[in-house]
């Protein structure tokens, strides 16, 4: 009985084109069927569709598969993209780049370079070692966790492409500008001493990526899905369940006075201040945000909250403390928080 299973497992790498076409078709037909299936599901349950519970259930049954589908699709594509970009290659591209151009490149590469927050420090030093300027390195370090595929997939799924694009553009802007400011402040002497000694020391280049065929790239897309979706799905379901609860039970406009249009000026800084010590990934926070917005919170305040949760966190500061002296950490956190704050205000003013 094992033979067919193994064949099935090897199939994507043997016929990558056929696999991609077929999976894409299945994906789209599932996506099309979402609303009717979720309505049908709620209809079979003994609850009133118009009631609190009915509303909450429909939200849950519709959002969960929708978000998981979008996430799977985007994570797969990103997994394939990752096979073209390695941190080593990114570093080589950034070496010797000036402030400005370098920051823009670093922030953009931050989106597509495989990055795990636990690699932040080795990456940081690796960049400096190869002669990437400090400010440019920071642009990368800010953009990589904040503007990532999970955040974009979820925003797209819940708020549509406009909000996802705005988040992308603003996230990049914060990363670029914050990196340039840190670069201009010339804080190289606030790196820990052993890190300064390593700066520009011509890094050893570890095993370059071997060339891959499409079968291998598809395989790594699949394993990326297994790794990421396998890790975040409980957060998403918990987040959506919480969101569904808010959706069904918390009265309309409850949030309006605190996070809404006519909220006092301090609501944006307060959102950021609450967000910084919180540490969760995009997957856990976005469903809650959707529910908050449904209850009258405004987008700018909510996005500022989300960015501060994802981009600045206490555990990250503690890891960075190994390579940065306190003043540089404080500057980093301050500049990024300020950038997020501005994003929040601008959003609220424009929309």
């Amino acid at each position, binding site marked *: 009985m094992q033979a067919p299973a193994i064949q099935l497992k090897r199939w994507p790498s043997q016929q990558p084109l056929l696999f991609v076409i077929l999976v894409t078709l299945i994906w789209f037909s599932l996506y099309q069927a979402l609303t009717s299936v979720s309505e049908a599901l709620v209809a079979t349950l003994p609850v009133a569709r118009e009631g609190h519970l009915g509303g909450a259930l429909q939200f849950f049954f519709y959002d969960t598969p929708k978000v998981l589908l979008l996430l799977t699709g985007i994570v797969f594509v990103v997994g394939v993209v990752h096979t073209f970009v390695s941190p080593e290659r990114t570093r080589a591209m950034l070496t010797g780049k000036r402030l400005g151009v370098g920051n823009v490149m670093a922030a953009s590469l931050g989106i597509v370079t*495989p990055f*795990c927050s*636990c690699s932040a420090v*080795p990456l940081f030093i*690796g960049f400096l070692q190869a002669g990437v300027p400090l400010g440019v390195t920071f642009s990368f370090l800010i953009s990589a966790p904040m503007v990532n595929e999970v955040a974009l997939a979820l925003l797209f799924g819940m708020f549509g492409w406009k909000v996802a694009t705005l988040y992308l553009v603003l996230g990049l802007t914060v990363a670029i500008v914050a990196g340039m400011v840190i670069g201009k402040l010339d804080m190289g002497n606030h790196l820990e001493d052993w890190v300064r000694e390593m700066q520009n020391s011509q890094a050893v280049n*570890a095993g370059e990526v071997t060339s891959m065929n499409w079968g291998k790239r598809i395989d790594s897309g699949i394993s990326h899905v297994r790794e990421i979706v396998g890790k975040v799905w409980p957060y998403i379901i918990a987040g959506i369940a919480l969101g569904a609860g808010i959706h069904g039970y918390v009265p309309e406009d409850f949030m309006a006075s605190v996070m809404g249009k006519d909220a006092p000026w301090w609501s944006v800084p307060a959102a950021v201040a609450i967000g910084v010590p919180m540490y969760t990934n995009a997957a856990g926070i976005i469903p809650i945000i959707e529910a908050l917005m449904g209850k009258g919170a405004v987008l700018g305040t909510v996005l500022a909250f989300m960015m501060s949760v994802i981009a600045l966190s206490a555990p990250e500061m503690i890891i960075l403390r190994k390579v940065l002296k306190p003043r540089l950490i404080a500057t980093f956190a301050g500049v990024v928080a300020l950038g997020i704050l501005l994003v929040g205000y601008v959003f609220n003013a424009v929309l």
Partner: protein
Amino acid sequence: MLNIKVLGTGCANCKTTVKLIEDAARAKGVTIELDKVEEIKDIMSYGVMSTPGVVLNGKVVHAGGIPSRDKVELWLAGV
């Protein structure tokens, strides 16, 4: 004897990698010397930027993410 070092600051992926190599070695009946390198300075001396990284007899053979089981078995086979 094979000497394998796993480079990583102690994140979940690094632990998974260590376990994966241990399991594969046990399954294949290969005795290996497995070290964990967790100090950032030491990790950097191998030139690895993305963890977990794997060093096989002093040579970096893998970086950035959990290696596939196939890859681990190739190392153990001494290829």
